[in-house]
């Protein structure tokens, strides 16, 4: 079979019924799993895999890949509309997507995101098609030392995610690196920072952690201020938002293409993939694009991660098909599907079974187009949610947040993590601490420690003299130099802008506050103090461990401690300046009534946890909906009854039928769900 024949035969196989039907079914399921925070492609693949037993290969792969292809397209919905990352691959999208929604430009953000997702996904698939025969040397050249170096390069993105204070940004990144050390370090046989909690042996669960950091602070604001997500009225917003977004995607085609390439290459490297690709692309955009307004609703901050996270999927398929090296858990499931179909990844996929390989490529192409078109058609309807009153959408958001945090492994510990990081995230936001570096540090920390440990065992100090490592080290140094220069330039521009401040720009700044954009020392010093205590404790706790498991946490704790002390000193100076009335315009005091009301609402969330222990999870969530609507929203009983009925239907259909979870039910009460 020639190459052309294989391409055409692959297309024919994908178009023969029932393959297109299953692909569309997969796309529909994938959109659902992507849009609901906490689910994601991995859960979806694990659930649908058993249904592919007995299917023809082209049909089975159409079903699985149809689902897999679009989760990172649909995840933009909650990232943009609610500020909650739909999947791990859309964490960076919220940095600019959510501020756009607050400005009433949700549909524009979605239009741009879906367009670049589609193009990124298709290019990723095409890249997969043309690269299979030539990519072997690249994948085989990347080993643990190169992964370690890549992770260090990734850490330099902290500079572009730190907002105003690189000091706080770096300390926050160290906090993330530190959190990555929680759990059982198998290589040293040591349980680290687990506080005798069984669920922490697996490490800090990422979904509740990210939901806590990003979603809870936004929810608190909605509850306390009762504004809509969009700070502007619907009538003031252009009706052709989706079209404008598509035009934005076309205007920034060069950025989209660059990030697509980043996505493909990062996806190709086993061990990196989905968890960092959006951050790398976002960091690249923030560092390379001129006149950036990143973090405040710059459309390029949406285009970059969304182009990359779909393109990543074609890249991730490469090592799986060509060498049977699954770069992620999703790819491990795909490998199982290969085996169930009697196919063996490897050279035969490029020779005898090249047509099957092309069914994968065509499925990715068609599914990406189908998913993006469906979402583009539906996007402007979905964006209407951002104009609703805060009190009316908050209970629904809380159900999604609490259940999203629960889905992973269904322990109450997940809710503790959610609430604890919600509390920390709220004060970080208030105190001008950038939150993205914590997530980046957490994701990279896991990769870095494992890669460092294995590199030293396999290659020793020779790890750092390998050619690709040297190139990456050089790139890291260049990136740091550029980041420092860009920070200085930014500061100078800001200074100049402040001097000729127009009323318009002042209004815009008040509307959307960039991550780490404002200093509020009274809210910041508790975070700095907390970090000092955390770093000191982590260093002390690690003293008795053997060398390997303590090397990484103690190094990070030492650096983090110094940075946190530095941040505290700045905070104390800032507080003194506020007291003396000499503080600059960027340093603000605390809005006490707002903070007290926020803490009061936070106590309601803690109440959800406590009540769950007493009466069980399902009734507690419903009770929260009723009480919130009555006492915070002051709505009538008729609306409350309808809302509650919808909540019951949502919880039961979603989490009892489609993705059944194990509900928490106290032992002293009879079960509702058996």
């Amino acid at each position, binding site marked *: 079979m020639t190459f052309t024949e294989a391409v055409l035969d692959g297309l024919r196989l994908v178009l023969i019924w029932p393959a297109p039907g299953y692909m569309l079914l997969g796309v529909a399921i994938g959109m659902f799993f992507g849009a609901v925070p906490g689910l994601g492609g*991995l*859960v979806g*693949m*694990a659930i649908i*895999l*058993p249904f592919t*037993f007995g299917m023809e290969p082209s049909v089975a792969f159409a079903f699985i890949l149809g689902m897999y292809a679009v989760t990172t397209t649909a995840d933009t919905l909650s990232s943009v509309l609610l500020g909650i990352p739909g999947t791990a691959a859309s964490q960076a999208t919220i940095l600019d997507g959510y501020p756009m929604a607050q400005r009433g430009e949700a549909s524009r953000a979605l239009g741009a995101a879906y367009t670049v997702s589609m193009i990124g996904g298709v290019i990723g698939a095409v890249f997969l098609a043309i690269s299979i025969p030539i990519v072997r040397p690249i994948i*085989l050249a990347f*080993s*643990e030392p190169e992964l370690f170096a890549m992770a260090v390069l990734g850490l330099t993105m902290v500079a572009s995610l730190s907002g105003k204070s690189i000091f706080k940004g770096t300390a926050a990144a160290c906090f993330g690196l530190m959190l990555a050390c929680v*759990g*059982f370090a*198998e*290589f*040293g*046989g040591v*349980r680290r920072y687990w506080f005798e909690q*069984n*669920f922490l*042996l*697996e*490490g800090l669960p990422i979904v509740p952690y990210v939901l806590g950091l990003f979603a809870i602070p936004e929810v608190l604001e909605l509850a306390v201020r009762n504004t809509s997500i969009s700070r502007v009225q619907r009538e003031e917003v252009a009706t052709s938002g989706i079209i404008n977004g598509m035009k934005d995607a076309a205007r920034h085609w060069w950025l989209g293409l660059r990030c697509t390439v980043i996505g493909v290459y990062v996806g190709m490297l*086993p*061990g990196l993939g989905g968890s960092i690709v959006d951050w790398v692309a976002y960091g690249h955009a923030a560092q390379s694009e001129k006149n950036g307004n990143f973090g405040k609703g710059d459309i390029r901050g949406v285009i970059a991660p969304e182009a990359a996270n779909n393109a990543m999927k074609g890249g991730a398929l490469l090592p799986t098909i060509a*060498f*049977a*090296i*699954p770069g992620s*858990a*999703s790819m*491990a*499931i795909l*490998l*199982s599907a*290969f*085996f*169930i179909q009697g196919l*063996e*990844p*490897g*050279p*035969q996929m490029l020779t005898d079974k090249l047509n099957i390989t092309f069914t994968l490529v065509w499925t990715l192409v068609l599914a990406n187009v189908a998913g993006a078109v469906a979402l583009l058609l539906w996007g402007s309807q979905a964006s209407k949610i951002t104009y609703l009153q805060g009190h009316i959408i908050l209970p629904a958001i809380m159900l999604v947040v609490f259940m999203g945090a629960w889905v992973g*492994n*269904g*322990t109450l510990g997940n809710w503790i993590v959610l609430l604890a990081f919600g509390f920390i995230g709220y004060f970080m936001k208030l105190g001008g601490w950038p939150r993205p570096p914590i997530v980046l540090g957490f994701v990279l920390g896991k990769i870095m420690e*494992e890669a460092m*440990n*294995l590199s030293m*065992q*396999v290659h020793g100090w020779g790890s750092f003299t390998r050619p690709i490592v040297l190139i990456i080290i050089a790139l890291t140094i260049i990136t740091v130099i550029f980041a420092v220069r860009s920070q200085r330039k930014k500061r100078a521009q800001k200074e100049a802008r402040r001097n000729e401040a127009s009323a318009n720009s002042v209004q815009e700044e008040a509307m959307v506050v960039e991550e780490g954009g404002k200093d509020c020392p009274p809210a910041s010093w508790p975070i700095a103090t907390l970090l000092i205590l955390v770093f000191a404790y982590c260093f002390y706790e690690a003293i008795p461990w*053997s*060398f*390997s498991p303590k090397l990484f946490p103690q190094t990070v704790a030492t650096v983090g401690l110094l940075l946190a002390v530095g941040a505290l000193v700045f905070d104390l100076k800032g507080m003194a300046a506020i007291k003396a009335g000499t503080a600059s315009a960027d340093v603000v005091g605390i809005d006490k009534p707002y903070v007290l009301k926020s803490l009061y609402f936070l106590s309601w969330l803690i109440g959800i946890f406590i009540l769950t222990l007493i009466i069980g999870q399902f009734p507690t969530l419903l009770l929260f909906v009723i009480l919130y609507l009555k006492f915070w929203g002051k709505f009538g009983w008729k609306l409350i009854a309808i809302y509650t009925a919808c909540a019951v239907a949502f919880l039961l259909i979603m989490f009892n039928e489609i993705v*059944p*979870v*194990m509900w928490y039910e106290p*032992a002293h009460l009879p*079960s509702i*769900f*058996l």
Partner: protein
Amino acid sequence: MNFLKHSALGVMAVAAAAVGLNAPADAQFYKGKRVNIIINYSAGGNTDIQGRMVMRHMKKYIPGNPRLVFRHVSGAGGTVGANFLAEAGRTNGYMMGVFTIPIMSQVMKAPELRADLAAFHYVGAIGQQTISHIRKDAIPGKTIKNWKDLINTDHEIRTGGHGPSSSKDLRTRLFFEALEIPLKHVTGYKSGGKIRAAILKNELDMTADSLAGYFGRVVAQLIKPGISVPIWHVGTPGPNNTILHSPSVAKNIPSFQTVYEAKFGKGKRPSANIWNSIRTIAATREMLRIIVFRKGTNPKAVKIMRAAWDKTTKDKGFLKEYKKVNGSVYTGKSGVDAQKYVKSIVNVNPKLQKSLLDYADKARK
């Protein structure tokens, strides 16, 4: 005589009535209910895929056709899930564990394992051998075609594992020490996939995989492309201090005992510590995956599920699919047998336990 005859008939009638009454009672127990199944490794791994496959077939034989809901509680080599079932699991019969048994953690009294594996109620168990494979070019200037080309080398072989106390690490190190082959062991790989990738990149020479992993991944990735060859499997503990060839493994892949005797002579054994440790590890392969209830679970549930498991292991569809997924015939145990067997494994003598612990500690850096 008549009395005896009538008594016997009476007993039979009561037994028949009991069975007759029991059958609908059994059907009612799970009717319209859901059974929560804890899997102690992440979604998509061998435990998950095999567990779901097994439960799909077993569901047909559970009276009342309950709904099965899967939940992954992974971490620390499977101990987190086992702890969860033992500490937070329900005893009403509606929560089970489908685990890869973290047996070495219990044998070595690892602190992260709080559950007592012998205290679970066993519904059934699946045995699964591991096959070791090595790069053909692991010894410079020589092409390794099979195990005979390896056993007399004095060249250092590079192997990989997950952690000093993992079964894979202990087994590999013990084998090489017994065979007196120099070894450079690298540990800390998060998954078997990462170890295989390192072999593909020629950073490691050798590792071992379960049959499911071997036929599902290794054959395509390393054997068929001509990079590696299989060398041996652990084997099954036999009588008189022996380790026998497992019926689930092809004849040309010998058990470790065969390899050892080929090098040192028929009937020879390494030190008692090493040999007993290897035999303990071999025993753990006999019930790698287990289906269990928490201690104190309703006996009725245990009885129903054990019966369902026994029927499943005779189901032609299950046996066919098992062979397809694992590349070998099914070997396993009934719930009753598994219950007895696990006790025999975990109750190792303190001297052996200490020796294993010391051995694992030697690898910690």
